[in-house]
């Protein structure tokens, strides 16, 4: 089978399963976020923690809850990492250095999972299971909760149609956007946990390992000895993909045969990465009662995903340079069992969601193929974005696109009955600045201080433009909370651990604060009733076109000069 046909078959299979999941999973999520009933386990939990599940929060309270919850998780994880040597099941590994512990704790709490360390040599089972895996669940649940809050703000209807107390549509009078504790509990207990159990079993069946065997020493055929680490991999792999976390059990991540053994587990993992972000538009459609709104998001995500996947695959297959041409394609750094097509598909999915997983060495991609990975992150992770974070990031772009379309038509900018006014636009204007400013600011500070620059450059795997791309990739990945690495860069230094940690923290919580403020602003509004003649055409194909163009036009201006210095200088510059 030719590469083109293989790619088409892969994408078609993926599209079919995602399409099959779209309606049931989207509607199930909507049900989770709007149901009035609490399960018995949830009630026990609320009572134990001392939370009133019927209380509704306005956005500042919701934000405070997000921050308090994440800060507590951060402190706990930091403590675990710093006291690893005292914990049982640590395989005799020592405690982490403060800077590495900070970086690791931040990146797992922020759903980024930037791993500055080699997991199998750094963290034992206790930390993996009680620390990292727990935060993989909770950080994804927080993202889902924030997305639910924004959708609830858009769906908020007048007091007369008030649904069940806590989670039903927010009331416009009070501007409440739900209850964070309920959202995060339900996301974990009703969505992520049960799904992970099923997924783990499927992965086990597919050949992913699950044991507590520690290290096994074997004698290889050649007569040498090799130490092979084992561990509870399948159980962590499930949430790593499903929650778009990406924190692998092994350093090689999804390229490791124990994590991702076969081409079909590879396709399954891509599906897991995409499934929640792709189904969230349906959740939006169901919660606001207008499926067209969901479909517009879905098509936009699909168009951007297709754009990145096709160009990346073409660049990789074309493979500039002597070695790739001899090999027939740029196969360096890619697993033979996945091939180009399976690798680029995974790479497109991982860079388009906030999943930092990888099944190939991103640094070994052709210059232009690697640029597509960077670009996918620079677009703000909307194709289709992280579980939860993708939905709110693309809704921010929708707000801008609706405003522009309305202006062009001389009509009032109204989205789903909610007026887009000065405050809303101020908020989204801030939102689109945050990620690029963090990435470029962190990059400029790090490369602007001479000793730091020398240290960073000494740690890059390559010199020149490719080396710069390695550094650039790290900062963008941190600021956008992706967590994947370009490889090559020695990231485990006090400076990089600290700056990237701070970027991850700001890149996570500043946008969340803005999104929650936006949710509150929408929730306060009484929706406008529109008729067929006055409704803005925000569900037509041309609006999808506008949205795709806008995502590119917002990302390009800030990043294009840097792409010129990195991948483009490498790819066409010489």
């Amino acid at each position, binding site marked *: 089978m030719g590469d083109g046909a293989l790619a088409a078959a892969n994408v078609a299979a993926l599209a079919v399963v995602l399409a099959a999941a779209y309606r049931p999973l989207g509607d199930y999520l909507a049900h989770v976020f709007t149901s009035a009933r609490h399960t018995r386990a949830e009630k026990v939990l609320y009572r134990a923690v001392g939370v009133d599940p019927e209380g509704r929060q306005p956005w500042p309270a919701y934000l405070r809850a997000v921050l308090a919850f994440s800060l507590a998780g951060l402190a706990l994880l930091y403590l675990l990492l710093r006291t690893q040597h005292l914990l049982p099941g640590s395989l005799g590994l020592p405690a982490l250095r403060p800077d590495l512990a900070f970086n690791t704790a931040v990146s797992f709490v922020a759903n980024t999972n930037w791993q500055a360390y080699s997991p199998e040599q750094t963290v034992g089972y206790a930390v993996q299971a009680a620390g990292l895996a727990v935060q993989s669940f909770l950080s994804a649940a927080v993202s889902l909760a924030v997305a639910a809050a924004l959708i609830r703000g858009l769906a908020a209807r007048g007091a007369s149609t008030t649904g069940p107390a806590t989670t039903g549509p927010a009331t416009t009078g009070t501007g409440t956007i739900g209850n964070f504790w309920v959202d995060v509990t339900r996301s974990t207990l009703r969505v992520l946990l049960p799904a992970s159990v099923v997924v783990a079993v499927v992965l086990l069946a597919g050949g992913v390992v699950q044991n507590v065997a520690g290290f096994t020493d074997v004698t290889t055929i050649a007569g040498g000895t090799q130490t092979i680490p084992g561990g509870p991999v399948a159980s962590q792999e499930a949430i790593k993909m499903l929650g778009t976390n990406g924190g692998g059990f092994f350093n090689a991540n999804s390229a490791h045969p124990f994590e991702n053994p076969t081409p079909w587990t590879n396709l399954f993992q891509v599906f897991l990465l995409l499934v929640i972000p792709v189904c969230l538009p349906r959740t939006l459609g169901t919660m606001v009662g207008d499926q067209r709104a969901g479909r517009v998001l879905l098509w936009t995500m699909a168009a951007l995903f297709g754009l990145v996947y096709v160009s990346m695959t073409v660049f990789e297959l074309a493979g500039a340079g002597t070695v790739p041409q001899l090999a027939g394609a740029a196969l360096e750094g890619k697993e033979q069992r996945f091939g180009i097509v399976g690798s680029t598909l995974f790479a497109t999915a991982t860079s388009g969601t906030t999943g930092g997983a990888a099944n190939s060495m991103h640094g070994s991609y052709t210059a232009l193929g690697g640029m597509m990975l960077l670009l996918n992150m620079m677009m703000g992770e909307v194709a289709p974005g992280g579980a939860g974070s993708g939905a709110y990031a693309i809704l921010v772009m929708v707000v801008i696109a609706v405003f*522009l379309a*309305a*202006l062009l*038509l*001389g009509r009032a900018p109204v989205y789903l009955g909610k007026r887009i006014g000065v405050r809303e636009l101020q908020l989204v204007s801030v939102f689109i600045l945050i990620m690029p400013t963090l990435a470029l600011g962190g990059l400029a500070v790090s490369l602007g201080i001479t000793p730091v620059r020398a240290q960073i450059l000494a740690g890059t795997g390559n010199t020149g433009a490719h080396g710069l791309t390695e550094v650039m990739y790290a900062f963008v990945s941190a600021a956008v909370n992706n967590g994947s690495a370009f490889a090559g860069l020695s990231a485990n230094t006090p400076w990089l651990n600290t700056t990237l940690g701070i970027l991850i923290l700001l890149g996570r919580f500043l946008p969340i604060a803005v999104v929650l403020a936006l949710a509150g602003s929408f929730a306060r509004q009484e929706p406008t009733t529109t008729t067929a003649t006055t409704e803005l*055409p925000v569900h037509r194909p*041309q609006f999808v076109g506008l949205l795709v163009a806008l995502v590119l*036009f917002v990302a390009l201006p800030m990043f294009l000069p840097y792409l010129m210095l990195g991948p*483009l200088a490498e790819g066409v510059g010489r």
Partner: protein
Amino acid sequence: MTRVLLDALRKCDPRVQWRNPVLMLVEACALLATVYALWETVTGATPTSGGAALPGSFHWAAAAWMWLTLYTANVAEALAEGRGRAQAAGLRAAQATTTAHRVRRYDPLRDAAAREATIEAVSSAELRPGDVVVIAEGDTVPADGQVVWGIASIDESAVTGESAPVIRESGAKRATVTGGTRVLSDRVVCRVTMPLGDTRVDQMIALAEGARRQKAPNELALFALLASFSLSFVVVALTLNAVASPVAAPVSLPILAALVAALIPSEIAALLSVTGIAGMYRLLRSNVLVTSAKALETAGDITTVLVDKTGTVTWGNRRATRFVPVGETTRHELVRAAVLASIDDPTPEGRSTLALAHTTSLMPDDVAAGAGRAIPFSAHTRLSGIDLPDGTQVRKGAESAVLAWLKRAGDQQPRGVVEQVRARTTVIARAGGTPLVVAAKPAGGRGEVLGVIELKDVVKEGAADRFETLRRLGVRTVMITGDNPLTAAAIAAEAGIDDHLGDASPETKLARIRTEQAAGHFVAMTGDGTNDAPALAQADVGVAMSSATAAARESANIVVLDDDPTKLVEIITIGRRSMATRGALTTFNIANDLVRYFALFPVLFVGTFPGLDALNVLRLSSPASAVLSTLIFSVVVIVALVPLALVGVPYRTPDLGTSLSRNLLYFGVGGLLFPAVCIKLIDLVVSLFPGY
């Protein structure tokens, strides 16, 4: 023109410029580039950037074009302000005024009726509070005031919407007269309390001049987005050299400044105010005064319009629609008597009676004006008619007045006739009409009631078309009237109005507006009466006619000078057009920027990475020329867009989806082609200079 150029120069003063932060940023860039170029000239350094040498004059040229960008932007604004100013001044001169008869040295004790005092004719605009004026039959009341002498019947329908004339007399509770109303009979002396023309024209001039220009909500929202775009380029300029440091030589300071100046949305920042001023200018031309930019833009968002029945939907003054004979009288006799009673009657009732007689082809051909001694309508008698030379007296008036007149003449009507008359008038009144009873008394003969003329509100011709236009704009109309709901429904149906509110009181009007707003509608309301003021204030856009009471005008944020209530169509269209123009400019600019990236970015480091020239898709001749051509294009594009900003984007009503596609094609795709062609052409010229 000189003034415009000088004004533009004055705007470059940083103390003035900071009000437009985007342009302030251009100014800062220009200043930075100039200082750098100066330093370079003094030290004799050769300009280099990104590892490539630049022509010696380059940094100076870049600085100069940045200054020119700033100046051109300010010229555009000054130009628009100049036009607005000229228009407003013309308007002030031509503002609709009436002639007032002012009493010089009024003496309330000895000459209360002001019959001996000197009376001078002045324009109503010259009246000041405290002036005393004489208003006689047929005059328009020149200003709001208090009656100090006399009694008169006044047609206040233009202001209050009530079609029945009201009585105003001195000393009583009913002593207030309102500017713009008309005296139907008698003569009064009034003291002016509030001049008719208020300060709105001056407000408008100030608005047009931009000194106190408020920003409309969408403009503020757009401004947030523009600020975000601008800041993003500042971030790029601040971080670029540090990030480039491992692989490339730094980009020179003036080129970084040029990057910011060329890429930030300075055109929109310059032209936003131009579109705002142009919108008001267009409204002025349609004789509409807007008191705030916000009102103009909100006008574009209107989804529901509450209109007064009287004046907007119907003529307001009642018109004869039917002759109803009583008793033995034939229709022919009734029409003849009615025509006689109206032949010298200048009131709308009289004239419409004649018109109706013409259409019924029962018009007697032997009756002409001046056939006898006309008895004009007076507030005392509430009758009008004629005394013919042969002694015949014909009268028409309210039922009670006519019956009283007959009784006084000794011809009390038999009970049967009275009952029959009452039956007829009740039917008419119940249907929302006004009955006018006609009676005649031949010389020496017995006076008798001949019949009844039915007076009704008539829907204005063209009104239905206007409401249809509003419907196509996506605006729902609601008619407000004091009539009973049945009559209201009938008139609403006839005029093609979507909804109606009968038996309206100030409270119900206010409540209706609140209900509409709660449903998310943007409500406009036209109103004239003092009792409309709360509703006008509550509405998102309150539209008052210039003849409205002072209270109504104060509460409204749009005043229609020529008293045409259907101006709403123009107001809404112009509001939407202003928004659409801003949208077009923004889309055009965002698309423009894409071309500029590909003109500017590849050449930044082409000295270090020569291969990047492959991305120079426009094949610009050199890095220096690319930067300079892009800067020059910024000036060109402002000049090219000024007409668009002034004229505005045509506002189309049909399918919104098609409109969106078309506008995206024109301003999005056009926004890609136009700069590509322009920058290439400019580059061809620039490359003629040695070194570029």
